[in-house]
Every structure is written in C-alpha cells, then in structure tokens.
C-alpha cells in the first residue's frame, strides 16, 4: 500500500481534530449548544475512527486483504465527491446567512422598533401621567378632603362625589382605604354587586409609606389595568389611600405588547446574531456530517459488495499460486463481475484438469526416466564391462559415446577423445583404417558392415574385428548415426594361426617322420655292409654320416613340431625354486662364466617342473650360445613379489637386434642356421599356460630375459586373497 493511502486517515483525523477545536462551542450560546455538541461528538467519533483505522494501517505488517485498497479508494472517492459540493454549499449558505443577517438587523429596523416601543411607552406613560395628574388634583380637593375627614357622617356626600369623579374621569373604580387597609368607600362603574376588597400590594404600601402617588399595571382576564395609588393627607398626615383603577384600551395595549414582544425578540436575535450564525453553521455541518456518514456507510456497504468478488478472486488466485487448485468462488452476481467469477471458475477447473494431466504425464515421464536411467545404468555397466570397444557417432561423425574398452584397445588420449569431437579429425594417422571403415559404413547402402583390421599401435600389431551399424531416424529416439564395435581378435587370430600351424606340423611330422626312420636305418645299414666294399671310405663315410645327421636333424625338427603341436597340459605342483637353481648349477658347473645366485630355500612356485626346466635350459643354452668367451658372464638369479617368482637370466653377449626382438617369440623364427625357430615360441607358450610370462627385459648390455611364474595355484591364490581381505 502506498504511503499516501497509509497516512491519509491520520491526516484526515488531524484535520477533524482541528475542526473540533475550531468549532468548540462557547458558553455564551448555552441554549444553542446541543447541535454544536452533537457535531463535536460526530466529529470526534469520525476522527477517532479514522485515527484507529490509520494506526491499524500504519502498524500492519502483512499485506492488506484482497480488495481492501479498491474498497478504500471507492469510499474515499464517494466521500470526496460528496464533500466538495457539500463544502461549497455550506460556504455559500453561510455567506447567504451572513448577508441575510445584515439585512435583517439593519439599523433602520432597529430605529423603527425603537420608535414603535417609544410610542407604546408614550401611550402607557400618557395614561399613567394623566391618572397621576388627576389624582394629584383630587388629593388637594378641599370638598373631598372635608368629606373624608367628616366620615362616617359624610359618607353619602363622599360616595356621591366619588361617583361623580368616576363618571367624569372614566375610571373603572375608586376605592378609599384608611391607613389600616380597611375599605372606607368604593364606587365602581359596573356597580358593587361583585365587588371584592383587595389586599394592599407592595406598591400600595410604598405609597402609604412614601406619601407619593404611584401606579402599577395589573393583568386580569386578558385585560390590563392601570392602578394608581394616592395618599390622602389631612394636616400633613396621611390618613387614607385612594386607589383608582382604570382598564387600558384593549386594542392599544395589545399593539403595545406586540411591539414590546417584537422588540424583545428582535433585540435577543440581534444580541445572539453570532450565535444564530453559529447554529446555522452547526446545523448545516450536522446535515453535512450526517450525509457524509450515511454516504460513507452506504459507500462502504456498496464497495464491500462490489469488491467482495474481487477479494474472493484475489484470495482464490493466491490459493492457486500456493498450489491449491481446488478453488471455486460461489455466489456470483449477474453482472460483469459475475461473468468474471464464472470465467475464473472455468479457468480454475481447466487448470486443475490440465495440472492433473500434467502430473500424470510427469509421473509417466518420471517412470520412463527411471526406467531410462536404469537402462542407461545397465548400458553403461555393460559398456564398461564389455570387452569390445564401442563408439557411437552421430550423423555428422561427432563422438556421442565411447567406452573404456575402446580407449584401452586403441590406447586413446582421454583429453582428445571426448564427446562432441569429430571422429574423422581424431582418427587420422594410425587409426586411418578405422576411419576408412567408418567412411565405408557411412557411404554404403547396407545397414551393417564387418571388417577385420590390422593396425599397429605403439609398435604392436593388433588384429581387430570391426563391426558397424547405421542407426536410422526411424526409431523412437530420433537419433541417427553410426555404431562401431571393435574387438581385439589378435589372440584369437594367433590361436587360429597356431592351431593351423599345429595341424600342419602334425601332418608334416606324421608324413615326414615315417620315412625318416627307414632312411636312417638304411643309411646305417649301408654304412655297415657296404663300407668295406667301397673304394673311398672317406667319401662314403661322409655321405652316410651326412644322411644320418640330416635325418636326425629332421627327426629333431619333427619332434619340435610335434611338441609345438601337441604340447602337453602342464601338471603343476609346488616346486622349490632352489631345486631348479641347484640343477642348473650342477648342469652348467663346467662353464665358469655361469654364475648362479643363491636364494631362499623356502621360495617355491606352482609349475610343471619338467616344462619349466626345459624353458630355463633353453634360455641358458641361448645365453651360452651368445657368450662363447669366458670373459662374458651369464647370471641366473631370482626375485619375487606380487605373488610371482621371477627367474632372471642375463648374459653379456652381443644382444638381440631390434629387428629380431619383434619376432623372437614367433614360431619358426630363428636366426640360427640349425635352429627350428620353435624354442622361444614353445617357452613363451609354456609360460603363458602357467599363467606366467616370458619377456625380454633388455635386448643388450646385458641381454636380460625374465621368466615369471605364479608362486601359488590360481585357486589358492584367490582363496588366500579372500582370507586376507576378510
């Protein structure tokens, strides 16, 4: 709420207080204060209501109720629209009253009333003066005084004289009292039949006391009578009181009293001129206040009825904002606001239905997402544990997904091979065959493609089986691209090749071995039977020996072939390594350049002793062949760790050329003219079948071969590992 609306009630309250102080009634207009006090009360109540309302607005922290601001503005507008004409009307009316006052209390009216009152007073004064004057004459009338002094003897004469005066002066009655207030004589115009003596008034007593003529007015039966008193002195002594009564002319005295009443009223009004103006102002203010209060009350009721739907709408909107869609506004009127309420109800209903549908869809989506995440988890787990390298490319050839096996297979740099990178840019160079495969897949018409690739990675040839598939956009995912699967089939190829060679070797050995023995026997028979018959024993011996030697070489060669083809399964058991060392020391004790290091007696390995002995002898033979000089040494020593025993054989021979190193463990590869090329190949195969390894650590200075064997059987090893972890 704006600051202006907040402080407006307080400002109005202060203004009303100022008006109260300004209008506080003065005590001079006590009779006219009721309206003023009523106004003060109304103003006070209004100011207090405004003050309380303003303080409530000022102290309120929370947001006002919906529609209250609109209601306040409507009430302020209604009262404001009323106050302007009402104030103007009041000011104009006050001006008119002020001008009317000036006309009413004009000095000419004042003068006129003064003169009228003077006339009335003059009329009365004239009668009074005449009566006093006549009485004064009769007070000094000697005949009258004589009759009074001679009473009661002169009563008849006195009565006749008084009757004569009454008739002559036109008075109503003449009464004569003595000093003791006793009626002495009386005459009356109407006769004495209904005459009643009256007690002395204060004025009569004053006359008797003071000895002066006095008069007074007396009202009787809508008539005003003038009563005059005259003391009767005889010899300077007041002996009697003469009371004369005359009725004033009714018409004239009514006029005189009317003039007096008007004069009094006029003067009172003139004296209370300011009060009249004030009471008019207060009356007008009272009417204005009543109208303002009534209008304000009506405005409040009207604005409440008008803004009630707005407030309900705002509250309903707040509920909807808070998430409560079960909202409906009842009691809609038949006007535009009612239409708005109906529209709102329809909107809320539709919104509720839509939200319910959205929630249902969200639930379905959530389930689908959960399922998708589960599938993704399964897929990622599958991809992570899959031995095959998986690469997913989009239709632009950008990497979308690849697994760890692919990275390990192709030895990829993780920093380069990231999602979003272009596969074509990354696969140039050593991986160009893979790129070519991708190009072929992307340009061919078939959906799938399978090729065998042989690539060299870090000097090692790898035989890969590449399979590709095009992912079309017809699927639900809307994704199109290519899926490449690369499998390392080097070992499989090697195995196949080895198997093929084995079969060939078996066949060759079988086919060749059979005629060799008869050839050798035949050659030895020739040597025994026909040596004496030939002329040249040397040539004969040379030829037969050559035949026998070559046959024996062929037999050994065939034996190696047979061994390679039918290498028996190793019969492993725990063998003390010292046994091998001791045997080799004994075997090569004749060669001083062979140095066999001592080793712990308890060190053992899990192997077939015959096959391992064959490997060690083969390696020692190679070393001896490489070192034909006793200055060059051959060292045999052992090391162990990580559950493996390593037999190290070093020699200071000429070393192994780099060109030989790559192929030295391949079958039928030999640099010796008499070698079959199967020695190291068989040794390597034996080591592999023992879950060990035979490797060339160093190709020269010294030449260093290492035979690695497990210290324990694989099952025992795993059992011990589990026990150790437990």
């Amino acid at each position, binding site marked *: 709420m704006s600051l202006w609306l907040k402080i407006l009630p307080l400002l109005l309250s202060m203004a009303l207080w100022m008006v109260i102080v300004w209008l*506080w009634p*003065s*005590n*001079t207009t*006590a*009779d006219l*204060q*009721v309206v003023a*006090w009523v106004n*003060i*009360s109304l103003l*006070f*109540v209004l100011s*207090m209501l405004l003050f*309380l309302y303003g303080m409530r607005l000022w102290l309120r922290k929370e947001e006002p109720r919906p529609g209250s601001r609109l209601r306040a503005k409507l009430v302020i507008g209604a009262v404001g629209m009323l106050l302007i004409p009402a104030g103007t009307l009041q000011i104009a009316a006050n001006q008119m009253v002020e001008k009317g006052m000036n006309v009413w209390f004009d000095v000419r009216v004042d003068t006129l009333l003064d003169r009228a*009152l003077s006339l*009335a*007073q003059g009329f*009365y004064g004239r009668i*009074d003066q005449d009566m006093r004057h006549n009485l004064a004459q009769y007070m000094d009338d000697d005949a009258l005084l004589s009759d009074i002094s001679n009473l009661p003897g002169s009563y008849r004469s006195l009565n006749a004289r008084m009757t004569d005066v009454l008739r002559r002066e036109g008075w109503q009655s003449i009464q004569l009292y003595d000093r003791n207030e006793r009626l002495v004589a009386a005459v009356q115009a109407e006769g004495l039949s209904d005459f009643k003596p009256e007690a002395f008034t*204060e*004025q009569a007593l004053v006359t008797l006391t003071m000895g002066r003529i006095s008069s*007074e*007015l007396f009202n009787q039966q809508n008539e005003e009578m003038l009563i005059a008193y005259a003391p009767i002195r005889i010899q300077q002594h007041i002996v009697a009181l003469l009371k004369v009564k005359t009725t004033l002319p009714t018409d004239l*005295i009514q006029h*005189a*009293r009317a003039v*007096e009443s008007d*004069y*009094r009223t006029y*003067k*009172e009004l003139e*004296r209370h001129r300011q009060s009249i103006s004030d009471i008019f102002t207060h009356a007008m203010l009272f009417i204005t206040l009543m109208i303002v209060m009534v209008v304000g009350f009506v405005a409040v009721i009207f604005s409440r009825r008008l803004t009630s739907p707005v407030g309900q709408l705002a509250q309903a909107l707040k509920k909807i904002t808070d998430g409560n869609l079960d909202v409906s506004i009842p009691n809609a009127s038949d006007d535009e606001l009612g239409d708005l309420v109906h529209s709102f109800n329809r909107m809320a209903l539709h919104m509720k239905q839509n939200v319910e549908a959205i929630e249902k869809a969200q639930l379905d989506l959530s389930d689908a997402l959960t399922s998708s995440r589960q599938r993704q988890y399964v897929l990622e787990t599958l991809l992570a544990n899959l031995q095959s390298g998986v690469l997913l490319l989009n239709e632009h050839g950008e990497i979308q997904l690849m697994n760890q096996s692919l990275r390990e297979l192709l030895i990829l740099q993780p920093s380069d091979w990231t999602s979003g990178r272009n596969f074509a840019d990354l696969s140039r160079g050593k991986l160009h065959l893979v790129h070519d495969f991708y190009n072929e897949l992307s340009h061919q018409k078939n959906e799938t493609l399978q090729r065998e690739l042989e690539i060299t990675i870090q000097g090692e040839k790898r035989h890969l089986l590449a399979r590709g598939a095009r992912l079309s956009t017809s699927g639900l995912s809307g994704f199109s691209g290519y899926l490449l699967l690369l499998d390392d089939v080097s070992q499989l190829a090697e195995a196949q090749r080895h198997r093929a060679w084995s079969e060939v070797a078996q066949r060759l050995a079988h086919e060749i071995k059979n005629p060799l023995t008869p050839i050798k026997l035949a050659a030895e028979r020739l040597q025994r039977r026909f040596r004496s018959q030939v002329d040249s024993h040397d040539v004969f011996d040379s030829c037969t020996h050559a035949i026998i030697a070559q046959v024996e070489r062929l037999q050994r060669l065939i034996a190696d072939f047979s061994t390679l083809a039918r290498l028996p399964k190793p019969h492993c058991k725990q063998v003390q390594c010292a046994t091998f060392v001791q045997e080799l020391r004994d075997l090569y004790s004749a060669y001083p350049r062979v140095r066999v290091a001592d080793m712990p007696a308890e060190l053992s390995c899990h192997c077939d002793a015959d096959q391992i002995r064959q490997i060690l002898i083969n390696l020692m033979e190679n070393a001896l062949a490489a070192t034909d000089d006793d200055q060059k040494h051959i060292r045999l020593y052992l090391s162990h760790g990580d559950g493996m025993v390593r037999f190290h054989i070093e020699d200071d021979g000429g070393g192994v050329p780099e060109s030989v190193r790559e192929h030295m463990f391949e079958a039928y590869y030999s640099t010796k003219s008499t070698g079959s090329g199967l020695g190291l190949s068989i040794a390597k195969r034996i080591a592999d079948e023992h879950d060990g390894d035979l490797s060339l650590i160093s190709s020269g200075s010294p030449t260093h071969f290492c035979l690695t064997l497990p210290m324990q059987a694989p099952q025992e090893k795993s059992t011990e590992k589990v026990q150790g972890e437990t």
Partner: protein
Amino acid sequence: MSLKQKKISGKVCEWLCKASLFGMFFLFASYSYSEELAGVYADYSYSEELADVSVDISQPVIYCSISSDIGANHLTRALKEGSVMAYRWEIIIEEVRSYWLNKNVGNVQFSRQVVPDLVSKQWLLKDSNSGITSATLSTRKAVSFLARLKHFPVIDRSLLESGVNYTIRVKLYVEEGEVKAHWWDLVTKFGDTVAVGSFTLP
C-alpha cells in the same frame, strides 16, 4: 452458532466496547475541558476577572458575599432590551485535601429571575429561594438583584470542622429567556466558575 456468526458477534462486541470507551473518554474529556474553559473564559463572558468571595464565619451560619456584579454589562443590556434573565447560582463548599480530590461538604443552589416590562419600564424581580416577587423601576437594582450576592447563607457552621481548610466555589448558570429545564442540560451546561475563595474555621 456458526463460525461466521461468532466472528460477526465478536466484531460487534469489540466495536461496542471501543465505542463505549471512546464515549466515556469523550464525556470525561468534554467535561474536563469545559470545566477548564469555564474557569478560563468566565471572565470573558460575565466578568472581567474572578470575583472575590467574602465569607462571614462569625455567626452560626456561614454567609458569603460577592461584592461586584457578575456580567453586569451584558445583563444590563439584555434587561434594557426586554429579555428575561435568570441567574442560577451554585455554591460549593469543599474540604481541601492535599493528595486527593477535594471532598464535597455542601452544595447550595438557588436562582433569581428578572422579567422586564418595557411598556411600563419596570422590572419584576423573582427570588426562588425566598419566593418573594417584587418590581422595580431601577435597572441598577434589577442588575444587582441578579448579579450580586449579599450575605447569603450557605451552610451551617456545625457541619464544618475547626482548623480545616475549605474552599468555596461559586458557579453561575446564566439563562436568557424563559427558564426551561431540559434533560440534556446535565451534559451541555456546565456553568461558569465566577468566584473562588477559601476559609478556615478557628
């Protein structure tokens, strides 16, 4: 009773309580303020300053007198212009207490009225205390009859204690025109304190 009805009745009770409190406050404030105004503006209305009250404590009955006429100018004009004027006097005797409101000991009220007769130029003097009615031709006498207290008996001396300070406060209710008693006079007419005095019995 439903919750809505309870709320409405609660609101009505709240507003009634507030209105009652405001009404009481308003009456109290009005009365206090009028008392205050009466003291301050009494001179403006009827006299130049607070008149002196002379208290006669030498007799069995306490008498008080006010030497000057209260509101003589206004009264003279009103009487000459024929308005009926009435002065209702209220004489309040209070025991002075240091730390509390003064204790009311006695309260005397009486009224006097002058009815002018402009035609005969005489004034009818009516005393409600004695019931005596008289007439006079002297304006000055009529004014003094209304606006001055002469040796007026206030309270019996036996009701007062020796050595105790008492204040005597004279309030005046001036009424112009015919005297009419209204029920609202209680809350709309507060009178003017025109004289204040104090005395202590030996």
